[in-house]
């Protein structure tokens, strides 16, 4: 179809198409369903392939050790996905790498991890991921962020541009807020890694979070670090960090 750029309708069609394209492009956070879903459904009519119809012509046997089959009683449970979530140790080490916290020197942090390790995701399956897992992730992230912004040895080298040593009134100008958020995004999500609109949405939300956190707090460097802990926890426990 040839679009006439002198035609008003042509402009409209093109504009709408572009907007829809942008919208659908970023509508990614859904479980993808494949056409050839591998299922194993038990039913009264199902024939046992091993005992009633043994294969003798050299073909591959049905089934296997079971580890490659997506079983479940619901359609959702049988869906095959190609997104996953990090397991307990992957999350633990990821947090260490991203915050720079040396876990060997942080006994309290190690104890917290030991206490909640059973609540963190056990494997990479997104289908096993539940509310309790996310709460445990947030808890662990908050402890890492607390450690990060409680010790100068960590927070003094954390930011590339933002000055964590400023009092909150000086630190959180509009420009200062953006500087902190961008530094944290670059560190936790990778610089120029996430789609632009994802980053923009995050910046908007984190901007609001900073304003909310500042309410009722006095003007001090402690307040600056307290706010940093909040932004840090939000970003560290977010999907771009914990998902595969």
């Amino acid at each position: 179809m040839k679009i006439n750029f002198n035609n008003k309708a042509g402009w409209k069609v093109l504009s709408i198409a572009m907007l829809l394209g942008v919208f659908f492009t970023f509508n990614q956070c859904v479980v993808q369903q494949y056409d050839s879903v591998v299922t194993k459904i038990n039913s009264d009519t199902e024939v046992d392939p091993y005992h009633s119809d043994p294969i003798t012509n050299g073909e591959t046997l049905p089934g296997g050790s079971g580890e490659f089959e997506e079983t479940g009683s619901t359609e959702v449970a049988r869906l095959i996905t190609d997104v996953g979530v990090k397991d307990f140790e992957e999350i633990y080490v990821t947090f260490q790498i991203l915050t720079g916290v040396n876990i060997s020197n942080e006994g309290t942090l190690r104890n917290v991890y030991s206490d909640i390790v059973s609540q963190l995701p056990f494997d990479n399956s997104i289908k096993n991921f539940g509310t309790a897992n996310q709460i445990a992730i947030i808890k662990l992230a908050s402890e890492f962020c607390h450690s990060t912004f409680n010790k100068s040895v960590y927070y003094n080298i954390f930011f590339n541009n933002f000055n964590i040593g400023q009092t909150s009134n000086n630190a959180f100008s509009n420009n200062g807020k953006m500087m902190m958020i961008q530094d944290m995004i670059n560190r936790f999500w990778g610089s120029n890694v996430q789609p632009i609109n994802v980053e923009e949405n995050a910046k908007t939300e984190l901007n609001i979070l900073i304003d909310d956190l500042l309410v009722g707090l006095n003007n001090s460097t402690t307040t600056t670090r307290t706010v940093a802990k909040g932004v840090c926890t939000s970003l560290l426990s977010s999907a771009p960090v914990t998902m595969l």
Partner: protein
Amino acid sequence: MKKILILCLITFSISSVFANEARLKAWEIHNRLTGVPPVPGSNTIGQMENAINGNSGIIGLQNAAAIAIQSRYFYDVLLKNWIKPMTNVAKTKNAPLNDFVATMIGAIRDSDQVGKPFSRILYGDVVYVGPSMGNENFNFRRNSNNHYEEIEDRRLSLKDVLVERMQSQVNNTESSIQNDSRNDVVNLLAGGRNGSAGVLSSRAAGEAYFSAGTNRRATRYMFMNFLCRDFEDMHDTTIPDFRVRKDLPRDPGGDSRVYKNSCVGCHAGQDALGGAFAHYQWSNNRVSYSSGVQGKMNRDPLFGAGYQTTDDSWINLWATGQNASLGWQGVQQGNGASELGMMISKSRAFSSCMAKKVFKLVCIKPPGESDEAFIESMAEELEQNNKYDMKNLFIKTTAKCIEDKYEN
């Protein structure tokens, strides 16, 4: 004005979709292959991005994966937690580092070296140990796992600290693992290779599969871990049952049809192979290997005319019939766990099992029908020139997953 608006929209949509795609792919490859993101401030992601941009398609992705796999976390996080479930009956990764895990990690690390195929983990006289720990209690011992637990507690880089040793010649308490002199080492087990058969004779495998029982667990878990098949999958009532041991009743519940139609389907094949483990026992917190047959192999003679184990010979009765589809190659009978491991490792089922396991690990989904050709090609590549290069398998599988995710 309208043209400017359209141009802005075009620019925005294209840039928001594609501007970071190479970096996003690099980020995902690193996370999939190591379980963690690149270290902030390092140039790893930049190198990976350049690799992806430098070569279009799968080659660029493979080059990026080859960079990511150099991270210590490929070994410390991804491989460690992938292998741990193979080392215990519960199949859980909630287990400490042990010699089974360390040996597999070391073998994967070295699998790109000439003469060190990964498949030797099933037959080689090999064990990977860590360094001297500065405390005798934490040095390598045959009757303790402290050495490996300490390595894990101290978060030592498995990529860097693991060294290869001959399993038959590592002393009981080695205080200077880094000392390469083997002249004074005493063989603790009876002569020859002393039953060394890679991870099959490792301490962790012994604790899990040789303790009590009848040693049948060793065969079953070897099949599950390295052929991706449980005995139910091998069930074949058409093969002869002359190697089924005495402890198996021929008329369970008073009905011999149950034996002929059910029990024999697994036991005829597995008992014929299980003789390979006749000399192994788990005692005093270590694997012991005797020159004679362990008593557990012939106990509870519920059927006197059943097979009496007199040596560690084995025969693969599953090589014919429906289970010929596992692609057995080479000699199908022999003596001891090492020769059995060799036979297992040469089968196509072993290669494709490794390819499937790696696929599931890095793609986070089981291979589907559309992936069968890829799995087969990876299995063939593993076997090429007897190289069994597992790092190559991880690199190519990860690249394929990422390509599929973004291209399809």
